[in-house]
């Protein structure tokens, strides 16, 4: 029994039994991750009629996505997995979207703010590039790709984890997928007198 958590867009959780989705929750508020994460998890456990002890692994969306919110779901998933001493799987949210849109060449993009996009290309759901931060002017280079712009959620993250397990993919990296360095540069002391 898999608990999936994703806070790359809204706050969502899901319980899957193999391929079967038992329950799903989604809170849209893009700034309410910390507030909603507990209810999202609690709801899916209740709806699926399973106890925390019946969960055998946790899948978490590791982005790329706005990191403040993303980290809330990741921390909750890691906390849950540590507490139950069960495996945690890290799912790149772009990969989860590619799996949901399997046919042919696709370009999955997700708003990276500051007029940029997080992007990755796939052929029949198999990645053909590393994820990167794209300037939208590059989009014209991908005319031959079908573009996917939807946001991710816990169901898709969960489905990818199930698919990965069946196909022997390694999801042991549970760190956030940062594609930018923290927004700072070391500062020099400023003069105070003229």
């Amino acid at each position, binding site marked *: 029994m898999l608990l999936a958590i994703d806070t790359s867009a809204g706050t969502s959780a899901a319980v899957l039994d193999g391929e079967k989705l038992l329950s799903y929750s989604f809170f849209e508020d893009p700034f309410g991750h*910390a507030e909603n994460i507990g209810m999202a998890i609690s709801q899916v456990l209740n709806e699926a009629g399973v106890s925390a002890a019946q969960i055998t692994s946790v899948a978490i969306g590791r982005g790329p996505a706005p990191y*403040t919110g993303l980290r809330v779901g990741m921390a909750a998933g890691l*906390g849950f997995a*540590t507490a139950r001493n069960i495996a945690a799987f890290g799912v790149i949210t772009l990969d989860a979207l590619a799996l949901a849109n399997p046919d042919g060449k696709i370009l999955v993009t997700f708003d990276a703010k500051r007029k940029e996009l997080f992007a990755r290309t796939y052929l029949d759901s198999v990645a053909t590039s590393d994820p990167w931060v794209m300037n939208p002017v590059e989009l014209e280079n991908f005319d031959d790709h079908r573009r996917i712009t939807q946001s991710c959620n816990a169901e898709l993250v969960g489905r990818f984890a199930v698919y990965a397990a069946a196909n022997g993919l390694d999801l042991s990296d549970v760190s956030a997928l940062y594609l930018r360095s923290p927004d700072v540069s070391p500062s020099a002391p400023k003069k105070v007198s003229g």
Partner: protein
Amino acid sequence: MKIQQIGPENLERVMLLETALFPTDSWSEKSMGSELAASDGYYIGAFDSELVGYAGLKTIPGSFLSDIQTIGVSVESQGKGIGRALMLDLLARAKALGSEAVMLEVRADNPTAIGLYMSLGFEQIDVRKRYYQPDGVDALIMRLEIKQPIVLGIESTCDETGVGIVRGNRLLANALHSSMDEHSKYGGVVPEVAARAHLEAIQPTLDKALKEAGIDLSEVDAIAVANGPGLAGALMVGIGAAKGLALAHDKPLYAVNHLVGHVGADVLERGSVELPTIALLVSGGHTSLLLVRDLLSDVVLLGETIDDAAGEAFDKTARLLGLPYPGGPEIDMLAKAGDPKAVRFPRGLTLPKDMEKHRYDFSFSGLKTAVARHVEKAEANGEVINKADIAASFREAVVDVLLTKAINACQEFGLMRLLLGGGVVANQRLREVATKRCAEQGIELRIPRFDLCTDNGAMIAALGAQLVMAGKSPSGLGFGAESTLDIRQIQTP
């Protein structure tokens, strides 16, 4: 019938009952009087228009043990359950104080009392032969174990990822991961860097704390997490992890105030926080002067910094002098060789006009600017600056203003007790001057050990445990990060 706390003012009536009940071995009026006034004692009376029963408990702070000192109910009022009610009140108090066991002695020839204690869970552990004289009656020594709650606390308000575990007032583990080194190249805490570090550190720090405490998460009775004040992105990591942990084992969750946690850290040091007290919390993020009458219900913010925190002023001044981050230890080291009176730097918000409006507030921005001007002027004049003198003079100005205001607060509120907390408490000069000035003024100074002064998970666990022990309801699942959480919000519902 009403039970309430009694004191020396009830001595006469208590002695009347005492001498009637225990004709051969009653306490003297003198010893009963000092018991009723003792600070480590808790005496209660049962009132039925007048005092008809009394009982006392003694708890030496830090001993984790309470003793039932005495209990008596007037002959006319016996058999009405008053003795039991008094005992239950004392036991609740012992539990709230963090005691892990309660001891008592009882006359072997008093089956009613023995029966009462056994029904409350006491077990006989020893006999003292012919203890009660002149009657020559044995004393049975009885003991009740109190199971104090095990609470795991998570701290992630700034650059320290802390996971602490306590059982009642006892520290079991205090695991910490600091991202301070990662901030050093930026000269200060960078929120995004801190938040990233929290997520990376949370799982290892949790594992470390559980290992240190030698327990499994299933044994934890409650989870506590600091939900503010602090950096929002950093707080959210701790909150996410805490909710995940709580749901994984269906444990109650308590969202607690980080600053009040600093005050509560003292329970781990001494087994209790002596209240009321003035508390001065000084760190890189906070400079707050508090009046604490009750840790769980009555904390008042007397004043705080209106610009930079004291620790921030140390960091910025260090940078100005070409010293690395964090600035506090660097300035402390350099200042040892300097003259604190070399430069008279300003003491922020101490002029009469400022004191009217900002009696207990602090300001360090002007001080930092004054240091910068001093350095620039010297350089423009081609003078060689004496960095040690500047460091010592700057440090003196910070320490002076912090302690002057804190000690003023003690005197003005008539509370001769000062508790220090926060990372800046590591400053050698602050400790020295605090010790000296408090001694001069007859103020009791309390400084928890350093790893309980800086941000840590144990203090969050300790405050959570206080809430559990006091029977407070857990927080709901819906609380969020409150970067400017009000000090009066000790627990977020």
